[in-house]
């Protein structure tokens, strides 16, 4: 009976431990992905409103979609190594109203890590 209890406890422990490790890994990957996404949007701000294409576009870093002639999306697109992992960026561009350009960046890392940010660009406006 003691053996059975020990076996069950060890099983529960192993299962819980694996789950905790996975959750921890996801958390770390999300944090790193967030940082990569943030870095990318800062680069977009520096890159300038004028150099962001007008219209609707999707740039899939995992599929190595090429940049525009102006070099959009800027690095770290299409992917970057961070914390020992490869992070791929998918960038979507669209417009809002007559002026605003909408940028969405999705950063994926491994199977679980994922961060996504959206921001609007206005000419000459960069507060970051």
């Amino acid at each position, binding site marked *: 009976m003691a053996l059975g209890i020990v076996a069950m406890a060890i099983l529960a422990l192993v299962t819980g431990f694996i789950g905790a490790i996975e959750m921890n890994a996801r958390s770390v990957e999300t944090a790193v992905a967030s940082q990569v996404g943030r870095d990318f949007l800062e680069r977009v701000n520096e890159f300038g409103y004028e150099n962001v294409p007008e219209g609707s576009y999707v740039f899939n870093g995992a599929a190595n979609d090429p940049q525009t002639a102006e070099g959009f999306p800027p690095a770290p697109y299409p992917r970057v190594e961070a914390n020992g992992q490869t992070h791929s960026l998918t960038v979507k561009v669209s417009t809002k109203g*007559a002026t605003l350009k909408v940028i969405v960046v999705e950063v994926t890392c491994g199977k679980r890590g994922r961060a996504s940010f959206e921001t609007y660009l206005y000419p000459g406006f960069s*507060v970051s």
Partner: protein
Amino acid sequence: MALITTLLMSVVLLMMLITLVKAVTTQDYLTRGQHDSVAALYVAESGLADVMSHLEIDGNWRDGFNGESMQNRPGKYWVKFFEGSGSVPDDASINNISGSSARPGPRGRVVPRGAALIVVTARVGAAQRQLEAIVNSAGVINVEYPLMTSGSIELRGAVTIDGIHSLRGYERVAAGIHSNARSLSGPTIRWVPEDSSDKATITGKVSAVDPRTIGVGIDFGPDSSRYDVGAFERSAAQRAFPGMGDIERQVNLHASAPPPTIQPAGTTTLPTGDYHQSGDLTVSGDLVLDGGELFVDGDLTINGGISGQGAIWASGKVTFRGDSTLQSTEKAAVMSKKGVNLLGFDGEDYMENFAESDPEVRVLWDATKQTLAETEELLQSTEPASVVGSGGPLDLQIRKLGYHPDNPEAPIPVVNPEDALVGGNYLGKLEAKLAAQSEGESRDFMMRKLAGYRDFFSANTDQPDETAANQFIHRPRVSPGAFDAVVNAGRTDALSKLMVQVSNLSYAKAGSSYFQGIIYTNGHFFAANSVTTLGAIMVDGRGREGSEPNPLNPAESFRPGQLVMRQGANMTFVEEFFEDGDNALRIRGPVQVRTWASR
């Protein structure tokens, strides 16, 4: 015992497991929260960008946002404008863009005149971020030189460039000219005196990025006594042009504004408001900007004077023909994507455009031109004696153009446009047509021209024909009754002199330009007439290719960034126009963030 030990160990292991899971879930929660917090900051920035895009179109916009969702990702933003009096809530925004004095804002802030304090609250999940920013809708233009280009500068004739701090005082400031161009084949900055009395006086620096020696890169001629310049500077640092935004974009942003109502001749007045014209626009007559802003998606040509306060934005060229006077307490801005031309007034063009709007004018104007052509032919007749004399071919021609009480053909009521020709006196009838238009300098100028020519072709009534003919022969000019006197007196010896006068009939005038404010173009700047400017001229052709032909000489062309003034320049830099203050020149443009802070 073994069982108890096992149970105890199991309990300890379970507690460790629970602690581990709890620690990991807490970290995951914090990571998510951190992600959402970052996302919320971008949402807040997006909200601010959205506010700025609204303020750019309407400086009085105060609708705000109440939980506006982001387009693609979770997240909302709120902006509430406070309109009342009393204490301002912490999360309230204040729009003081059109205000005349500073207003109190939230948390004891002061919102300056001409600015808005925007507080954006953003939420993503459980995370909330707030940022506040002070933005300007109408920016003060930062100008260092009253005349600055990215290309070459060519000045001819007398040039004076000086500066004052304020229009209300006498405090002098140095004012110079600058070119960012380098590696041109000719001089980057050149001044050429047109006659022996021309001088160039520039109180500030004449500077160029061009490293070539003075006399090559900057060439004011060999005679240094002809010019008085603060200093010459070669290899100067590149100077920054003021951030004026994209002119074409501004024009497109106002595409929904109503079109301007243009008078066919006379004066067109644009009261306060925005006006948008799709395609090229030609204004025949004078344009008065009464606070209006005109956006033209194409070329703008004003064949007449321009005056008043306001702004003109054109995605193409802007051409002023005639007198341009934008002045008084008013300050104006002319923004052109492809270039600015200041030319003399073209009366023929003016009348052609007028004729387009009135069939009667069309008939009279065409008949006038035809009669003048026929008169010229008769004046060149190989048998001069056959064309002179009362009732002769020339006499019949001038009865059409001027007033002749003895004309047997009396005018009739006009039913069809051609009826206007009956009874002659085409020039007098055209003058009357113009008189019915709204007043304006160009209309008045044309009326004076037409009246002068009408009198020239009208009957000589003041003195005997022989006397008047002799006076004309002695001093040939367009004087009342002169043509009639020569023809009636049968003075064939004076026909060549009449010919000179008729062939030189002109409805043009050189014009002059007086401008108070700023002219900014991404193309070229060309002035064929004399230019007096209180303010600044910026010719920023960076990044643009191609060239535009000289409207007066198609064999010559101007490149973006090039400035050419052929009849001299008199420029006074008014420092206070370009400094933040009550007298600053503010133009609409991209809204700019002056300060911002994350709360």
